[in-house]
Structures are given as C-alpha cells and as structure tokens.
C-alpha cells in the first residue's frame, strides 16, 4: 500500500511539474494574446485598446498571481476559459478528445489487422518473396511523410475515384454513415505508417520466438502448424509488439496535427496548434495538462499492474 501511495504521489508531482513548465514556457514565448485578438486580418490595434483587453483578460496581473490562479483552477478541475472566444477549455477538450481517440483507435485497429498477419507470414518464410516485398512496402510506408500520404489518398480516393469525401467531420449522432466515410481516409493515413512498425516488430519478435525449444516441442508433439504459430509463437511474440504499439498510440494523442489538418478533422491537435498560434494560454495549458495526465495515468496504471504481477517491483 505504501508503495502505491508513493507512486501516486510521484505521479501528482510529475503533473504539477508539467503544469508549471507549460505555464512558464507559454508565458515566456513572445507574443501577446490581446494584440493578436485585435489584429485579425489586418486589424490595427490601438495601444489603449490592447491595454484594456489585457486588463479584461487578466494579463496585466503579476505572473505569480496568474500562475496560482491557473494551478488552483486545475486543482478544482477547471481548465479556464479561452481568451479568444471565452468558451470553457475543459468542455472543448472533452468535445475534441473523443474525436482524436476515435481516429487513433480506428488507425490502431487497422494497423494491427494489417501489421500482425503480415509480420507473421513474413517470419514464417523470412527469405521468401512475400517477406522481401513486405519489407520494401513497410520501408516505403514508414518513410513517406503523413501529409504526403494523406494528400495522395485524397487525390486518389476523393478527386479521381470520387469514392470518399476529401475531408471534414460530421458527428456520429447526426449522420453515422457520413461519419464513418469521413473517418476512413485519415485513419488509413495513420494506419499505413503504423502498420509498417507493427509489421517489423511482429516479424522480428516472431523470428526470435520460432526457433525456441517450446515451439519445437509443440511441433514434435504433433500440434497443428496453425495452432503452433498462433497459440504458441504469436502469443509469446506479442509482448514487444504491444509495448511498441502502445507507445506509438500514446504519441499520436497530440501528434496527429498533420493528419487532422489535411483531413480537416477537428481533434485535439488542431486545438493545440490554434491555441499556440493565438497565444491562448488557457487552451494550450488545458490541452497539455489533459494529454500529460493521460500519459502519467497510463504509466501509473502500467506500474501498478507490474507491481501486482511482479512483487519484486514493489521493493
């Protein structure tokens, strides 16, 4: 129990450090939200109006006061209001987070469906045509930037073939069919690169597992080949795949900026970029706090699971 409390305390300290770093870094970057708000498309902000707006937004207060206000708000679960439109940052994050998670989940599932079977097949005949061809395809998929890949998919499937929309978002509740159509291309764009990683890790891991004694034993006992591969080899080879896959997915939470931009998907990354461009401090802090809390929470969960399954970790 003491170990668990210590880990929890560590996580809270980490979160506080993140909040402080984010707050300080965004406030020390040049750029004034009040000036930007008044300078839309060539607006010429009068210094007096800038000053009035700064007072309205509380930007004229000393930095320590702004910091404590910020931290106290987060402790109360209040991420503040956007300086641009006054909307609740917490509500906006909660509206956008599921969209990004949906995109990542769809891409993740698609990449597993492609990467694992390809990796297994490739490991069974490592010098075969399929293996060599798949390695070339995986290398290409990994090296093509997502915005290039996304643009190519738009040109092919939206402009040339006309099968799918070029981009956009419709809530599932308003039009489920259209929602799924719009999900296909951005999810596929992420999935193509991700499946290449899954393929490589699965292949390497399977190549490590296949020569091991227990596989040979299973085969010697007459277990059918498919069962040996799936139940015995793949099951044991999946651990590194899951680890790498989880890390990749975690990175995507705030890293889908380009895909969200190309496909006009209104997720969390777009909100973060708009927040940084407008120097909308509460938005930037809010998004990063949520993303960090997500990571730290996941880490804590993994540590707890390790602690339960392996008592040595707790010592």
């Amino acid at each position, binding site marked *: 129990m003491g170990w668990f409390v210590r880990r929890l305390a560590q996580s809270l300290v980490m979160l506080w450090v993140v909040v402080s770093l984010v707050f300080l870094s965004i406030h020390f970057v040049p750029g004034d939200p009040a000036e930007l708000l008044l300078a839309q498309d060539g607006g010429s902000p009068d210094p007096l109006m800038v000053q009035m707006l700064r007072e309205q937004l509380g930007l004229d207060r000393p930095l320590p006061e702004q910091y404590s206000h910020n931290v106290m708000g987060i402790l109360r679960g209040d991420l503040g209001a956007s300086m*641009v439109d006054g909307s609740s940052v917490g509500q906006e994050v909660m509206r956008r987070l599921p969209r990004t998670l949906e995109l990542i989940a769809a891409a993740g599932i698609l990449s597993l469906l492609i990467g694992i079977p390809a990796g297994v097949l490739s490991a069974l005949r490592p010098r075969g045509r399929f293996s060599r061809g798949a390695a070339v395809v995986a290398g290409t998929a990994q090296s093509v930037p997502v915005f290039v890949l996304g643009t190519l998919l738009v040109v092919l499937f939206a402009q040339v073939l006309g099968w799918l929309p070029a981009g956009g978002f419709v809530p599932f509740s308003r039009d489920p069919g259209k929602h799924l159509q719009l999900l296909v291309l951005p999810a596929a764009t992420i999935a193509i690169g991700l499946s290449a990683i899954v393929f490589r890790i699965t292949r390497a891991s399977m190549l490590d597992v296949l020569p091991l004694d227990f596989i040979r034993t299973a085969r010697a006992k007459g277990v059918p080949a498919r069962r040996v591969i799936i139940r015995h080899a793949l099951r044991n080879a999946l651990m590194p795949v899951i680890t790498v896959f989880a890390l990749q997915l975690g990175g995507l939470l705030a890293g889908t900026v380009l895909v969200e931009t190309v496909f006009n998907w209104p997720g969390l990354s777009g909100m973060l970029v708009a927040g940084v461009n407008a120097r909308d401090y509460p938005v930037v802090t809010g998004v990063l706090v949520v993303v960090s809390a997500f990571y730290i929470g996941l880490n804590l969960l993994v540590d707890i699971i390790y602690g339960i399954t392996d008592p040595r970790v707790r010592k």
Partner: protein
Amino acid sequence: MQLNRRNLLKIATMSGAVLALGGRFAQAQGGQTLRVGLSTYPPHLRPWVNVGYSGHLLCSLINRTLINYNEQGQLVGELAESWENETPETWRFTLRESHFHDGSPVTAQDVEWTFQQIQADGSGAYMFDALRPITGFEVIDERNFRLTTDEPLATLPALMTFPFLSILKAGSTDAEDQGIGAGPYRIAYAEKGVSIELEPNEHYFKPGLPTLAGITITPYVDESARVAALNAGDVDMIDYVPWSAMAAIEADPALALHKVDAGAFMYLSFNGGGVFADPRLRQAVAFGLRRDEFVKSIFFGFGAEMTGLPRAAGSPYRHDDQAAFWGYDPERAKALLKEAGHENGLTVSLLSTSQYSMHRDTAVLVQAQLAEIGITVNLTMPDWATRVNLGNQGAGDFAVQGIGLDNLDPDAVTTLVDPSLSPTYLRSRNFEVEGLSEALAQGRSEMDEAKRVDIYRRADQMVLEATTFCGLCYRATGFAAKASVQDLAMLPDQLSPFSSVLFDKLKLG
C-alpha cells in the same frame, strides 16, 4: 454466420462498397443548399468584433449594416433607405421597412442600442475607435434618427459600411453571442470547429431573397484541403483561393474563379528610430524594387504591381502620375544612398514572419533585390504572434506587411500612411511628415468632393515623397465555385474580400 476468413472478406468488401456508394450518394444530394468551404471557423460569434475575412462572411450572411457598397463601389442603402448631411456636424438617416430574424421591425432604437454597445468602454468592438467622433444619437421616430459628430466628418457614410458594424435587435445579446440580426440567413446549427448550418430568414427585406434552402459552412483551414474539397465535390464554393491553385481552377470548365486582382496588397513600413529616419533611404528602398517579380513569383501572376498608394482604378482620387511614382530605378536608388552617405552600402533588419508564405517570400525577395543596390538586409522571421508583438514594440528597421482596406473612402489609407498616429505593427513609426496629419484631417472633414480630391492629391504626394508607406504589389483575392453557383458578385478592389455582403443573391443552378 460463422466467423471465418471467407466471411470476414465478404463483410469487408460489402462495407467498402457501402462506404463508396454512400460517398457518391452524398455528393448527389446537393439540392438547393449551398455548401461553402471556409478558410477558418470564426473564432467566435460575438457581434462587432473583428473576426477576419472568414468571420465576416458568416457575419454578413446573418446580419446587415446600414449602408453598403455595390459591385461598382458606390454607396447604397441597406437597412438605411437614405441619409443626408443636414449640417456639417449632423447626419439624418431614414431606415427602410425591414425586419429582424424574429420578425420584429428594425427601428431607430435598435440602431441607437447597437451604437451604444460598440461605443461602451471595453467593448472590444472593431469600430470602437472609428465611432469616437460620433458624439450624439437622436431618435426622431421609429424609422428616423440623427447622428452628431464632434466635427464635420465626410467619411461617416463610408464608416457605416464597415464590416462588423451590424445592426442587431436591441437587448438581443450581451455581446457574448451573435444576437438577432436582419441578414438573409440565420444560424440553425453550429458546432465549433465542425460546421455551421444556416437557414433562410423569411423576414429578409429584399423581395424574393434569399433563394437558397440553406447554406452549410465547413471550415477547411488547410488551403490544399479546401481546394481538394472543391475538386472532390464536397463543397460548392470556397473562400481565400490559394494563388497556386487559381490557374487550375480557371482552366477547369466545371469550376469558376471569381477574383479581383487588386484585392489586398503587400507593402513595407519603416521604423524612423534607426537609419530610416532619413527619407532618402526610404525612397532608395522604394526605387530599388522590381515589383513585377513579387507578383510573378509569390502570387503566381495573380495580382498587380503597386507603384503608388492603394487608390482604386477609376476613382477620382487616383492620379496616373502618383499611381506610377515608384518605378524600378536602381540608379536613382543608388544615388539616394550615396546622397545619404551610404555609398559603401547599408545594413538593415527586416521584420516579417515565417508562418505565412506570402510574408516570408516577400521578405526573401526584398532581401535579394535590395542587395543589388548595396543594401544588406538581415531577416527576422518568427511566427506570426511573435512578429505582431515585435512589430508593436518597434523592432526592425522596416517590416513586411499585408492588408486589405475595409472601405473605399480615400481616408481609409490614413491608418497605413500616417506615421504620427499611435504606433502599431501595421504602419511606419518614429518619424513625422510635416503637414500630413493636418491634410488628412482636412480631407476627413471636407464635404465637397472636388475639394477632397485636391486635398488627398496633396496628401498622397507627401506620402510618396516621404515614403511613409512603400507599396509592393496587389494580390488577387477571390472565391472559387462550381459552375452551378450563380450570381456570385464581387466588390471592387480592396473590398473584394468582403464581397459576401452580396451573397444574399447567390443561387444554385
């Protein structure tokens, strides 16, 4: 059904077919609802606050101003039926019979309330400064009111056309939401960052308008995504057409490009706190630039050289000699440098931004061309937010600027050319031109058109000779639409980005 490989393949194939057919079906359902791809989702729906060109498009679809410009650039009544200058300091307006979205009539009291909201301290309204000269508002009756200004103000009718001076129903908003307007459409559904759906206002004052069953606005922030959406048939029309795509759109018979070459423009402003306190050096810069290259290389030929001040073609305020003042003349530029004591060269810093390609590329081209006459330019190009901040602090010897004017009155350029105004990132600073502010003030208060023409000719000459503003080039602005979109009219010159005030007539063929 048994879950085996064959059945999984069947399901996958059928799902693909359904999605693909769904896509085609969705495209076929255009109907009479216009689908617009907008360059950005308006940051908010607060009235009277500048939310940029895209925000203005929405604003002008749901709201109306008192006066407007027509396609020829002439002032025409919108909610105001007529207006007259009773005395030099008073203007009488008569409202036409019109109604807000809820069916209630637009009255003089609504106009008074709107002005009060804008003029309130801390309103943050775009017109807060511009309406300062208005010191009195008198409601004569339901449809007539009188405005009093602190001094004669010839620009007042033009002020009433300003974007973000929409007349809203009294008390309909606490300035946090859009309130009740009198535009051709009203908002039926809006999800931030996703889409806005508009439905027709059955009380709109123009007979037979609007004709569309509705408008769906979807933001496409990335310009390539916006063009792709138009090409793919996801939308019927887009704003802010990228210059790189204009030629292809023009060549596509299924699409139409609606553009104005002299839309917005690029220019340089100077900081008189350094070497550019000397007007000869500012002139040297102005004469040392080949402006045709800016149009060709940055705007793909969709624009025009700017060798004078931004005066609209055909305007009585435009004079040929002044419009061609800054021709490319490297010998003269070098002579001016020598005269100013810099015959061995000069090193200056140029402030721009790397965030927008037109600003970045303009800075790079200025650097390259000025090197030819002996001026070494060091570039400072942070992101836009930092650039605005540095500009307001007075950083850099000179700066790249891009803007469009928001009305056609000759006084509209004042904010860009008079360095004695309060210092902002948009104009030259730290020096003055003797007599310029007085001439511009005289132009604002003069009611006689012929006299105004003379006054602004004199003021423009001062600006050109002192080079408080260095024009580079106009850049085309426009909309692209499917050929089926009809009656898409454009306002002239720098007003073209605000053409959405004419979109109440849009039809789908």
